[in-house]
């Protein structure tokens, strides 16, 4: 299972973790001992013992700004079977969203994760909607088992940058 996931870097895409602006990364409703870096940062995200966990309820709101404009192609979200995320909404270029305004405007893409995805199969996004992304907001609405706590093992973003074209 893992080998399929590991070799599944889409052709022509790069892992965007290098372009994440870590000073602006925020996560609402995360548990203090299990924070976003466990799922996002290289090294941490591959450690099975470290994961991102929600706190007061099962929703999570993750805000990831980038150091430059990128195009997002696909994402990989890994998590445990029961507590892994199910409905995930993505918003582009919206700063400082809160749980109260996730329903104020339509998401750029909404994905329902299957157990395969949770094992590492990438989810292809509506590429046209993610052409000019400065920041990404990931809203995890609920989890597979309907539990009170959502857990995320790993989040990987695949895409390209504009670098060759922008001067």
């Amino acid at each position, binding site marked *: 299972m893992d080998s399929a996931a590991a070799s599944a870097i889409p052709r022509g895409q790069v892992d965007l973790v290098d372009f994440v602006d870590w000073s602006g990364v925020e996560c*609402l*409703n995360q548990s*203090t001992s299990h924070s976003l870096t466990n799922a996002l940062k290289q090294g941490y995200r591959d450690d099975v013992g470290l994961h991102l966990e929600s*706190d*007061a*309820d099962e*929703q999570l709101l993750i805000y990831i700004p980038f150091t430059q404009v990128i195009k997002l192609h696909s994402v990989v979200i890994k998590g445990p079977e029961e507590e892994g995320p199910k409905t995930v909404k993505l918003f582009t270029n919206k*700063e*400082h969203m*809160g*749980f*109260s305004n996730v329903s104020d405007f339509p998401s750029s893409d909404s994905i329902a994760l299957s157990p395969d995805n949770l094992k590492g199969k990438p989810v292809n996004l509506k590429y046209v909607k993610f052409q000019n992304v400065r920041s990404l907001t990931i809203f995890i609405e609920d989890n597979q088992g309907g539990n009170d706590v959502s857990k995320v093992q790993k989040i990987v973003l695949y895409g390209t940058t504009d670098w060759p074209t922008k001067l």
Partner: protein
Amino acid sequence: MVLEATMICIDNSEWMRNGDYSPTRFQAQADAVNLICGAKTQSNPENTVGVLTMAGKGVRVLVTPTSDLGKILACMHGLEIGGEMNLTAGIQVAQLALKHRQNKKQQQRIIVFAGSPIKYDKKTLEAIGRKLKKNSVSLDIVDFGESDDGKPEKLEALLAAVNNNDSSHIVHVPPGPNALSDVLISTPVFTGDGDGGSGFAAAAAAAAAGGLSGFDFGVDPNIDPELALALRVSMEEERARQEAAAKKAAEDAAKQEKGGEQASSSHDATMAEPNSSSVPAVDDKRHNLTDDEAALLEQALAMSMDDPKSTNVAVADTDMSEATADDHELALALQMSVQDNAKDSPTQSEMSKVLEDQSFVSSILNSLPGVDPNDPSVKDLLASLQGQSESQQKQNEDKQENEEDK
């Protein structure tokens, strides 16, 4: 120095008319609010504070989060008491006000003054607490005034629901002679999460009390140095006498206790005058002076050792007393100040610092050959080792030094 946006929720319900906190619950609350605003804006200039009232016709935002202290203080005027407090609505409106803060980098904090009974059940409060935690809003609760119907438990439950990593706090303030603001100064509400709060608190206390020009008695030593000196010396004399009398009475009962409690209990009896707004201002100034004088104390003691001037000082002391005795109004004003100061000082948070200095001072004084043991003021001071008599010793020494300077 945490960058923070704070919303303060004031209880202006009918229960605030009660006078079990002096002068009224509402006034004590207002003083506390002023102090908090000062402390927050001082700790980080980019901090913003907003105020809203929870009772009256409904929740009303008086000022949205701003760093302009004047605006905040101005809006505290002319507030009317009435109605019932709506805690849940107040917190929700505060949360909304914070959400729309201008600087999104600021952390969100709500400070709630809960003085009236809480009619909501635990579940509702916990739900609100969870919502606050979800949006990473910290909550400080000041539980004062009415305490019934399981109010402390409800508030503790609310705090437990909100608390994330000890960023939220609750303070229960029982009614008593201590001002609400004084009690709050030493709590995490003021001191934040462990970043050197006492500096801000002291500065805030000075700022709040600094309606005067910043000098003792409102008299500018530059303009009228003799008058200022005379006033100060007489106050010290008066205080030494009063302190000695009170201390002897209370000494047997509570030798082991902290000087602060002892002094305040003894001074409850001697307290005749109500606290006026100007007097606490003077008292705060005096107490700040005390700390400065600790440094001067060394000099004074050295000089006392060198010359047998204590006898001259004793004579000078009487001269001073006579001078002020002529002016009855002045003496009366000083009396008031002395009593109030005697009451205020032990309740200051810097009591522990004074205590340390006291033991140091007493040991030094005992070893001084030059100090005249027959000097009545020195004798009185030596008799009582705790409480303000120590601070008075310092002031007496300082007075001696001033006398020598003259």
